[in-house]
């Protein structure tokens, strides 16, 4: 994309096209012969990773839109049906949902790399600003996409974020109404968010083209921050950068696949498995992790307008970075002070992110304010000042000099990263303990689940017993509306035959109709029917249960969790610990105590449960020993019932879990082999140029 191409294809047909539309020449000059600095490190492959992720998100998004229904009454269910019924729907959904997180993770690395190596400096200011625009578009897209499943967090996130605009003086309220298309977040909001969520990625792709164009005009920056001077400083893009980027992407795929197959819900919020309810707000409204630092800034400023300005300012300020930092030396590699402040800034961002996930009270508020000041100080004070007072180390004459001089100094960024992470981790570890202590609720003992871990499978016996417990006990109050009778005969389920599932279905009476005469009628259930709810509608359910509607149990194990914050994240990442939900359900079932302990009073009409948050639960103790008979000789105790029914509910929440883990294993074997091949191929390609 830099100037006219001297590319001349030998094929006459291609020549004919090239004379009229020099697109092949464009690709050739941009991605084949394009000179790449030969000292690029792996932080540079995040550009390729981002292109890959954008393509992935568009591809999976287009597919998901084929199955999704953008209607307030149907959206939640349509997402559940994608995951349950569509061929590979669970995979495509995980790819898209985890993909958003991966996309943001990659973009943050990409941005921090730019920050560290001074990629925003002359002559790359426009390139950098285009990047900030892409980032803003990504934020808007990610936010609107998160709204689409129409869960509790979606709905309340949409409410909170759109309400930000009400801070605008004079016009605020009207703007918010305009955004909603109604008196509150509702169906029109969902419709327009869906439309825009589909549109914006194409705008992003457009700006990415500009971003790459600007990149190819200015040339790539590099870790030493000196411009390539001679031929020796560069290598042709293909095969060198191509193969290196492909190796980078294949390593990134390993991380991505880990989330897709082994912890797809880890980065999401459990509350989003509860259908949107305009009448109840979740206790803490938290955005997805990638917005947390900005959310923390928003909350730190005790004035509505100022908070909103602060939050948007925190992003917009990046546009002015090329002028705020006027240092001549680009790369922080040669700026001892800038390097240290950079890592402090990274730590500030991580800590802000952590604070954003915590309730806005006590020490968190104060820490948030301090860090908000630090965040802005980095841009407004530190960088301008450093560019005046800092004496940088001498910069190498040329890239090839730098490559030749390369010694052990390469490892410093790694060491600094480790130090920053360790510091952040120890801080988090301390604060999490105190947060837990102030909550004061009992953490239940963890359970051993047959389905946990990468090779976990459901225990068929437990599923069958759990179904029995559900049918005889839970079904009198709770529905299971996302599970069809046919699911009982599917692979990965309780292991019933098709005939058994049909027989099971025919025990139920299902409301159907209207028939030819226009009447509703009852008929025996068929395999295609869903488990009927015990109550005709929510009002009836409320009336029969003292005002609290019993939740549908299909997703209960996904919709409930205990808090597991930062330090645990590291452990959970490796152990794939996903069992908060089932632990929660089984603990609640076993936590009932006849009398509240001394000094604890619970409201009239509720029961004491030591594991239920707040301890007062409207549901009376549902299970007691010997209540359900088991044919297989398993103990008929509450503990066993709780375990069995929780296992069953875990299956109803994700009938394809076994398929997910099985495919995950195959994908991992493939990816590891592929990344290995890529690595050696890359080595071969680069060996020739050294």
């Amino acid at each position: 994309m830099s100037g006219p191409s001297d590319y001349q294809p030998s094929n006459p047909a291609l020549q004919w096209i090239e004379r009229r539309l020099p697109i092949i020449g464009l690709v050739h000059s941009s991605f084949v012969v394009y000179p790449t600095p030969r000292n690029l490190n792996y932080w540079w492959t995040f550009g390729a990773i981002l292109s890959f992720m954008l393509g992935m998100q568009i591809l999976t998004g287009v597919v998901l839109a084929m199955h999704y229904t953008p209607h307030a009454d149907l959206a939640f269910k349509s997402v559940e049906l994608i995951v349950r019924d569509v061929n590979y729907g669970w995979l495509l959904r995980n790819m898209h949902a985890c993909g958003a997180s991966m996309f943001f993770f990659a973009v943050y690395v990409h941005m921090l790399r730019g920050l560290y190596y001074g990629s925003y400096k002359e002559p790359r200011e426009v390139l950098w600003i285009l990047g900030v625009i892409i980032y803003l578009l990504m934020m808007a897209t990610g936010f609107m996409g998160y709204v689409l499943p129409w869960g509790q967090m979606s709905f309340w996130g949409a409410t909170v974020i759109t309400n930000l605009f009400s801070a605008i003086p004079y016009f605020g309220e009207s703007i918010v109404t305009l955004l909603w298309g109604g008196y509150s977040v509702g169906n029109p909001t969902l419709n327009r968010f869906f439309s825009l969520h589909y549109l914006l990625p194409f705008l992003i792709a457009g700006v990415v083209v500009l971003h790459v164009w600007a990149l190819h005009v200015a040339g790539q920056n590099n870790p030493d921050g000196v411009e390539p001077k001679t031929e020796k400083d560069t290598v042709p893009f293909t095969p060198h950068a191509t193969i290196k980027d492909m190796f980078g992407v294949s390593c990134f795929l390993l991380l991505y696949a880990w989330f897709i197959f082994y912890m797809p819900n880890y980065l999401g919020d459990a509350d989003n498995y509860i259908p949107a309810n305009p009448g109840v707000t979740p206790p803490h409204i938290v955005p997805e992790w990638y917005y947390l630092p900005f959310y923390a800034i928003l909350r730190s400023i005790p004035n509505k307008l100022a908070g909103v300005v602060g939050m948007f300012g925190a992003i917009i300020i990046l546009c002015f970075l090329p002028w705020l930092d006027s240092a001549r030396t680009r790369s922080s590699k040669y700026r001892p002070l800038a390097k240290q402040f950079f890592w402090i800034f990274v730590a500030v961002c991580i800590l802000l992110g952590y604070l954003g996930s915590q309730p806005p009270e006590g020490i968190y508020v104060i820490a948030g304010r301090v860090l908000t000041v630090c965040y802005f100080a980095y841009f407004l004070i530190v960088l301008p000042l450093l560019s005046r007072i800092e004496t940088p180390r001498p910069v190498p004459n040329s890239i090839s000099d730098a490559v030749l001089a390369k010694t052990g100094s390469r490892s410093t960024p790694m060491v600094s990263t480790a130090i920053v992470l360790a510091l952040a981790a120890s801080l988090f570890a301390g604060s999490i303990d105190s947060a837990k202590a102030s909550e004061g609720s009992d953490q239940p003992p963890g359970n051993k689940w047959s389905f946990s871990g990468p090779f976990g499978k459901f225990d068929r016996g437990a599923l069958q017993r759990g179904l029995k417990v559900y049918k005889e006990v839970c079904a009198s109050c709770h529905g299971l509306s996302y599970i069809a009778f046919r699911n009982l005969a599917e692979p990965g389920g309780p292991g019933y035959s098709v005939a058994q599932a049909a027989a099971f279905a025919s025990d139920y009476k299902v409301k159907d109709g209207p028939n030819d005469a226009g009447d509703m009628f009852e008929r025996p259930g068929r395999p295609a029917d869903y488990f009927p709810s015990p109550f005709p509608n929510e009002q009836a359910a409320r009336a029969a249960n003292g005002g609290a509607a019993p939740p549908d149990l299909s997703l209960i194990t996904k919709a409930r969790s205990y808090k597991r914050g930062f330090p645990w994240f590291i452990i959970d990442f490796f152990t794939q610990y996903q069992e908060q939900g089932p632990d929660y359900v089984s603990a609640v079932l076993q936590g009932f105590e006849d009398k509240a302990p001394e000094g604890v009073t619970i409201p009239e009409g509720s029961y004491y449960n030591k594991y239920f948050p707040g301890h007062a639960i409207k549901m009376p103790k549902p299970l007691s020993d010997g209540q359900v008979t088991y044919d297989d000789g398993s103990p008929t105790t509450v503990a066993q019932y709780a375990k069995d029914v929780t296992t069953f509910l875990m299956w109803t929440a994700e009938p394809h879990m076994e398929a997910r883990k099985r495919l995950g294993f195959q994908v991992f074997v493939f990816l590891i082999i592929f990344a290995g091949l890529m690595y050696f191929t890359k080595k071969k390609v680069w060996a020739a140029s050294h």
Partner: protein
Amino acid sequence: MTTASSADHPTRRDFLFVATGAAAAVGGAAALWPFISQMNPDASTIAAGAPIDVDLSPIAEGQDIKVFWRGKPIYISHRTKKQIDEARAVNVASLPDPQTDEARVKAGHEQWLVVIGICTHLGCIPIAHEGNYDGFFCPCHGSQYDSSGRIRQGPAPANLPVPPYQFVSDTKIQIG
């Protein structure tokens, strides 16, 4: 470096390149499959395509009803004696899509004609009890079907298809 020395062996290097390319191709093809497979009918659609029972007792002679199975309209006609005779009197060899009436109904239940009501021309829904042959008439491009649902006149190439069905009892059929 050992790997650098192996650069002198083009065969080994080529093998590496080919293996990497092949792995990429296999992985790409495998990754494509979910994107194609998702277009196929989903599990709920397939389950909803299960056989249906239809009670014939309320259908009077000379009447027909339309039921839906797998999203397709199924005509169930209770044919009159006259209609049956007409259908059987035709010289089968003269038909565009030769088929006897006996082959299109169940023995012992000649009065019941069950056909998929989708015109074999371009998929419109023919109107029952219309047209010149006491059968079906497709208004789209003027195809005429007789009382056995066989094409007699017009652009449609084939007879109205008979769906899979059987008599569960004298007054009840199961389609599918």
